């Protein structure tokens, strides 16, 4: 039982337990300690691309979602400097795509928007890129609007790891990086995706939308009208959701 006692780390002074094999993010979420994140979803393998969960261990900056928890780690997460950096990263994601919250049907359910609220983001700060990115409206039930994609890779992982369909991938380098569909035409309609798939519903932003249900829940009664992203972030788990089904 000695090892159980030894398996603790500290985040912002709070001592939390972990089991070997867990990441810092796993341990934090299990202890109901929130570290901001967009590309992480418990139950899917971690990716580490959004970098919002950067924490500091000594003078090292690491992404909590991909860094193994280790005994006696002294971790800093909720600091003014790190939150300022998270804010700037969120602003970067905003200017990279076209995030027009007032006219986006994901508004209120959007994690990027919720993260902006959570971090107190009042403007985009950086000049917008206005990139041209393709829209794929070919599928009868699902719309893919790449202009709103933040390249978090969640749909890619959900499709391959949970749906078992491998519908999505990311192609291209730098700001040319974009979501592609694994079908001969490159269109969603020629892929095996269904609107009940996790890949079709996991999109944190308005890039993958289920058609004909955009305004079923009125603005004001949506997820992040009721809760902060911190609260939802502590509850999420794919295996739990699938069990509930």
């Amino acid at each position: 039982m000695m090892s159980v006692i030894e398996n603790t780390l500290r985040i912002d002074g709070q001592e939390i337990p972990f089991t070997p094999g867990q990441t810092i993010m796993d341990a934090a979420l299990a202890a109901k300690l929130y570290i901001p994140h967009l590309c992480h979803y418990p139950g899917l393998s971690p990716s580490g691309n959004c970098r919002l969960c950067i924490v500091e261990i000594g003078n090292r900056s690491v992404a909590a979602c991909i860094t193994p928890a280790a005994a006696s780690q002294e971790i800093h997460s909720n600091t003014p400097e790190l939150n300022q950096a998270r804010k700037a990263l969120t602003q970067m994601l905003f200017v990279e795509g076209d995030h027009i919250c007032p006219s986006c049907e994901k508004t209120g359910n959007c994690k990027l928007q919720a993260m902006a609220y959570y971090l107190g983001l009042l403007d985009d700060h950086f000049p917008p890129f206005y990139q041209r990115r393709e829209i794929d409206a070919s599928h009868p039930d699902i719309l893919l609007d790449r202009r709103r994609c933040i390249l978090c890779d969640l749909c890619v992982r959900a499709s391959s790891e949970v749906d078992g369909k491998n519908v999505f991938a990311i192609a291209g380098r730098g700001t040319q990086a974009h979501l592609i569909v694994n079908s001969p035409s490159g269109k969603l309609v020629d892929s095996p995706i269904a609107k009940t798939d996790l890949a079709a519903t996991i999109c944190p932003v308005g890039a993958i939308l289920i058609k004909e249900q955009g305004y079923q829940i009125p603005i004001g009664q949506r997820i992040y009208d009721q809760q902060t992203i911190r609260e939802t972030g502590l509850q999420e788990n794919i295996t739990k959701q699938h069990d509930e089904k």
Partner: protein
Amino acid sequence: MKNSCQHSSLHLPQEHFLHRLHALQQEFLHISPQAMQQVATEFNLPLSQVAAVVAFYSFFSTQPCGRFHILFSNCTSCGYLSDEQNLMQLLSQQLHATPGQTRADGLVSIDETSCIGLCNQGASLLVNGIPLTHLSPDKIAQIAQRITAHIPTAEWPVEWFEINDTIYQRNLLLTAPLVPYDALQKAIIHGAAETLAIIQQSGLNGRGGAGFNTGQKWQLCREAPGDTHYVVCNADEGEPGTFKDRVLLRDHAEALFEGMSVCAFVIGAKKGFVYLRAEYRYLQSHLQAVLARRRTQGLLGRHILNHLDFHFDIDIVVGAGAYICGEESALIESLEGKPGIPRIRPPFPVTHGYLGQPTVVNNVETLIAAAHIVEHGSGWFNSVGTEKSKGTKILSVSGDCQLPGIYEYPFGVRIQRILDDCGAQNVQAVQIGGPAGKLINVTEFDRTISFEDISTGGSFLVFGQPRDLLTIHRNFAHFFAHESCGFCAPCRVGTQLLKNNLDKIAEGRGTTYDIEELKQLSSLIQHHSHCGLGHTAANHVMDSLQHFPQAFTAHLKQHFTAQFDLDQALKNARQITHRDDAAAHLD
């Protein structure tokens, strides 16, 4: 270590995936959706993986290139901007072509590419993959004539394609003789454990820049459990300003393969790879010839030097144009036929590398040094250098100096000594380790090349007083924005913002506010990125803000300036409305 004795090429199809794509690109001048579908079937891969690979690498295209495909280097040393002349523009004008596009008749396409490692050869380009050096306006005109006349490159003057490298300073590695098989024979006599001890005693650190201890790397890999082990030579020399590996691959391939074989013997590998950058594809046949010779001499293959249990062979895998593949885990991804996106580490390649097996990835120079160390002893090696930096470093010196070329010095050499040797006068700044390295000014020329002071993978760029440093910074920023793999947000977006910000200052739209922006942005990219590319992409800006603030401030406006050109922003609107009258302009 218990490895099965069978040859381990079972994992691979007959031809490497990247080579198959290259063959299609060669034949059809692009890779069509149909071709991608066909390759996906051949290799039993998802179509999306094929498409992702084609989109990732610069040397693959989905639109047809010209029959003469010309890529100008855009490096500060071998780039197309020579003596205020824009050679790419010159050729484009003479051929009525637009850079980045293929001419309507399909004859020619002209574009730029990241440094092609010909920095001591003057302005250079690749024509259908073959390097053409010492460009001048006169030569550009002759090239244009030949292309217009449809004269194949094989009939162009042979001397245009000659590459002569001068080695101005020789030390341990470039003077000591190395007879093929001597080092390997010694390794076998010593046994694997003793050979590893020799490498460890030598104090050899990796020559790629990061400087990890080679003996320790080999030991970790040797001890790591796995079905098989691999040794990979990182010949993806992509740091702008570096060309020493090109020279080593050409003149010291035998020593390189000897070093790889010694490593294989120590770690128990049966298979090795040289990952050669696509820009050096023309070296492949030479390397293959050396490999073939070694096979006939019993230095590769089964029962090497009649040793019962030593079976090892080497394949050459040619990349397809991506700087990021110099990062060892991205290189392994590329070897596995994927986009070169750096992996999550840990686990490290020494335990989980190529195909998940323990893998040593070493730089060309490191492996050559290892061969020499086994041949001549650890004392021969570590008697030279400094306390923490044993042996010598081979530098690629270029830029504003009289004698650009190869220089080998013991570690600890002073910067001023190198500048004196290469005939650099009136020096403003030196960029050591390439754009990802360190920019220093005159007050630091007493510092030394070593792991404890200024470390470099080999790039040594000299900038004289007349150079506009902001132009250099823009060049570097464009390079990183182009080469960012796009995986993580701070690097993908941040390098683009940094580039835009420097462009804005150069266009005369910068204000004091932008200096603070550069600082914030640089720090964010440095601390929050996923891999070394992001960690180092803003170094040059941060160094300059410290040592050469005037490089930026000299261009700033004192009063409020619009972030963008308002009149230019109306261009689309004017096109749509077919208007170009005075009222449709703002100025």
